[in-house]
């Protein structure tokens, strides 16, 4: 008789338990709580007890090292470490503490005796005491701490004032009178300024730009970029190009395409409901079509009504909020503040620390500012819903008595714990901008020059496929001064034109740079070009001396990474090794790369064997940070793109890259970096 296959009770089969627990979590909405504060507090108490018990406790701990990760990740039986008799360990600790205290007293007496006989050393210790008056050091030196010289440890670690001099949020880019009173130039003059600025840039680099495309080709590219429509070849454009642009930018197709361009970026890799995003896209399209100031979209997205779950703000916030709202803040930075806040979550940005949005303190003041905003999956409604508890956390109502506002705690790279108060990115109190902290932030962003710059930069990227000025300048710097000035000029004109998106897009596609022929080289040409020729091509691409390809579509990071992995497979290594070598024979070159292998970026081909100094320096910095795990290093590289963090697929591909390079982290990170620079 065979035994029954089903267990006789309601207990699920073992294989089902993980799935059942996930199902239960989904149905009861009992998600993992954030236990960070609780665990850290418990750990501090434990450490405090251990230090009170004397250094002997540390010796006990140190006597039981584990071999985590080195062998089979086996751990000692934890049952053995659980105190069966809770009194015994305390007695042992107490006895050890007494021993330690006796040793310290003995050492102290010896030290005092020694100091009495050596005035020079005594003076030196006095100086040490003055500069570092911690009680433990005083005790070590055998000097009794005086009340005046003792600094309580709690003050050193906790509740440091946010407005310390080094964390001043004074923003050199805050709205200046010159920005507000800038003269509004006619469209033709703005385009002429773009052309002149880029011509100066090319001249300074002694660079010959690509020739201007034929009128037909140009018309096809302009229409495709503006409306997504394809003109038949030869193009059916009958008007001159400026008329075509004017006509296209005033069409509904333009409004729909650009609304979709932006919403796709806002909700990329989020929990957004597709139907809600589509509805929002339609609303934005109408706003564009009616020439509404573009910056008001920020108030619509973040500053609107959260009590209505169908509102635009609810859609935006529910898609991105959650936890400490890191994803929401990162997205606000990348899309509306022209800043990659992924980096500054952990440290000040290396390139432009003078901007408030490049400082770690600013990031955490935003975390504090958005406290009370959360989103969760609602099982009844079958979608994510927003929770807004800011009215309870912040003293929004002036009639109520003020109460302490929530703050955010964060670690400096040195390990010092700091606290950040809820403030606007320029350091001003949120109350000055009106409404709740969330609404105040939306108001501030919509009026900020940062949003002007962000919009210009994103429009440029959507047209050219690359940012005018990258948000992270760690690995690219060609012609950066000219490009930064041009970005500033366009941002001020965008403001002067009442944030009219049609005007802005029109300027970009009317420019001569947009009319230049794109880089169109065959794989054979890629392979046979010399180093110098490739570098020149890359420089042209970097400073927009070559036009964008028709309908520039940014390759996804996953696709870009897959291309790099495929290109880097052992059978292709020999081919890549010959890439930068000039052709040595006069024979017609054979295609050395199968057509099925997509071409990686020019940067990858050019520097595949020899990275640039900035690329190498960036990767070396990551490798020097011993604290970072492999996944965190991957996150840092991916942070150079618009992504907040690497998803599981990217992590998987990065791991493949690491294996492909036989565990050489430096080589793998460089490949990843090239993939990121090529992808979006």
């Amino acid at each position: 008789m065979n035994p029954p296959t089903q267990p006789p009770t309601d207990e699920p089969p073992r294989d089902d338990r993980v799935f059942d627990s996930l199902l239960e979590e989904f149905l009861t909405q009992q998600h993992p709580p954030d236990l960070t504060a609780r665990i850290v507090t418990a750990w501090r108490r434990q450490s405090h007890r251990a230090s009170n018990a004397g250094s002997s406790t540390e010796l006990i701990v140190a006597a039981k090292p584990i071999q985590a990760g080195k062998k089979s990740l086996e751990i000692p039986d934890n049952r053995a470490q659980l105190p069966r008799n809770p009194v015994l360990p305390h007695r042992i600790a107490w006895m050890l503490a007494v021993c330690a205290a006796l040793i310290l007293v003995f050492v102290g007496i010896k030290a005092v005796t020694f100091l009495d006989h050596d005035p020079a050393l005594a003076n030196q210790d006095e100086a040490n005491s003055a500069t570092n008056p911690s009680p433990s050091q005083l005790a070590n030196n055998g000097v009794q701490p005086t009340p005046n010289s003792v600094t309580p440890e709690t003050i050193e670690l906790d509740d440091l004032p946010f407005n310390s001099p080094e964390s001043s949020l004074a923003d050199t880019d805050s709205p200046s009178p010159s920005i507000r009173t800038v003269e509004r130039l006619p469209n033709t003059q703005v385009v002429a300024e773009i052309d002149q600025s880029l011509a100066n840039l090319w001249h300074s680099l002694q660079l010959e730009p690509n020739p201007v495309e034929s009128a037909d080709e140009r018309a096809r590219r302009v229409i495709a970029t503006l409306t997504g429509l394809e003109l038949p070849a030869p193009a059916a454009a009958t008007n001159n190009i400026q008329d075509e642009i004017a006509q296209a930018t005033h069409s509904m197709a333009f409004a729909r395409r650009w609304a979709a361009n932006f919403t796709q970026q806002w909700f990329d890799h989020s929990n957004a409901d597709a139907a809600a995003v589509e509805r929002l896209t339609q609303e934005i399209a109408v706003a564009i079509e009616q020439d509404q100031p573009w910056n008001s979209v920020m108030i619509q997205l973040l500053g609107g009504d959260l009590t209505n779950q169908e509102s635009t703000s609810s859609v935006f916030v529910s898609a991105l909020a959650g936890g400490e709202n890191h994803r929401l803040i990162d997205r606000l930075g990348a899309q509306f503040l022209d800043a990659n806040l992924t980096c500054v979550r952990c440290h000040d940005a290396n390139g432009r620390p003078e901007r408030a949005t490049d400082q770690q303190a600013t990031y955490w003041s935003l975390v504090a500012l958005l406290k009370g905003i959360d989103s969760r999956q609602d099982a009844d409604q079958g979608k994510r819903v927003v929770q807004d508890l800011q009215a309870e956390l912040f003293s929004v109502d002036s009639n109520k008595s003020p109460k302490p506002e929530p703050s955010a705690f964060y670690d400096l790279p040195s390990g010092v714990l700091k606290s950040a108060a809820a403030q606007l990115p320029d350091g001003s109190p949120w109350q000055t901008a009106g409404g709740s902290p969330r609404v105040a932030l939306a108001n501030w962003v919509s009026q900020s020059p940062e949003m002007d710059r962000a919009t210009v930069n994103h429009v440029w990227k959507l047209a050219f496929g690359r940012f005018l000025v990258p948000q992270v300048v760690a690995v690219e710097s060609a012609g950066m001064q000219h490009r930064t000035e041009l970005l500033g000029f366009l941002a001020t004109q965008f403001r002067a034109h009442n944030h009219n998106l049609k005007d802005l897009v029109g300027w970009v596609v009317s420019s001569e740079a947009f009319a230049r022929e794109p880089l169109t080289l065959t794989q054979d040409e890629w392979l046979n070009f010399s180093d110098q020729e490739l570098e020149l091509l890359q420089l042209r691409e970097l400073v927009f001396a070559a036009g964008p390809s028709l309908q520039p579509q940014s390759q996804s990071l996953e696709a870009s990474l897959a291309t790099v992995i495929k290109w880097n497979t052992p059978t292709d290594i020999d081919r890549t090794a010959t890439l930068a070598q000039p052709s040595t024979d006069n024979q017609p070159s054979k295609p050395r790369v199968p057509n099925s292998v997509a071409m990686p970026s020019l940067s990858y081909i050019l520097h595949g064997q020899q990275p640039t100094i900035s690329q190498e320096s960036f990767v070396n910095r990551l490798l020097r940070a011993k604290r970072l795990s492999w996944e965190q290093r991957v996150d840092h590289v991916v942070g150079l793109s618009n992504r907040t963090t690497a998803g599981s697929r990217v992590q998987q591909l990065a791991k493949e890259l690491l294996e492909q390079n036989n565990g050489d982290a430096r080589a793998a990170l460089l490949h990843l970096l090239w993939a990121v620079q090529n992808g979006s």
Partner: protein
Amino acid sequence: MATDSKEARKVTGEDSELELTELIARHQATVWRYLRALGADVALADDLTQDTFLEVIRKPFEQYSDAASASYLRRVAHNLFISRRRREGRMLVTEHAEQFESTWMRWAGFDAGNAALDALVECFSRLTDRAQFALRLRFAEESSRQGIAEALGISEHGAKNLMQRAKMQLRDCVEQRLQ
């Protein structure tokens, strides 16, 4: 020398707190869900998650990779859970840790179960209303099979079959999305 060693210890202490905070941020969801899957209720999962991290940070700990850290944390959590059950004099968990680990890896190994939960949201909405209702009663309301049968106006056997089929559909659907 005394000053140097003190300074070194101080730095190590701050490092540990930073490491702990980062470790918690990255892995607490995994540990908590793992304990829930083992059978811990919410309060016990909270407690044991805390104990797990304290246990791990108490001793020298190097992070080789997220996967290795997560695996190590799960082993510690598993041991703590068994210890707790034994001290309470309750039934022992008898299956091998490796078997449970492989099941865990299948559903939640790479992202703490987030992808499976996301897939569940969509897959659950595709079930019939009756199946959704039955599963809600079973998991959210903790109703007995008899209670579910009465609420649906069917026999107990019918309720059992309905829930089994619904769960099978859900599993297939989620598995397809995870591939």
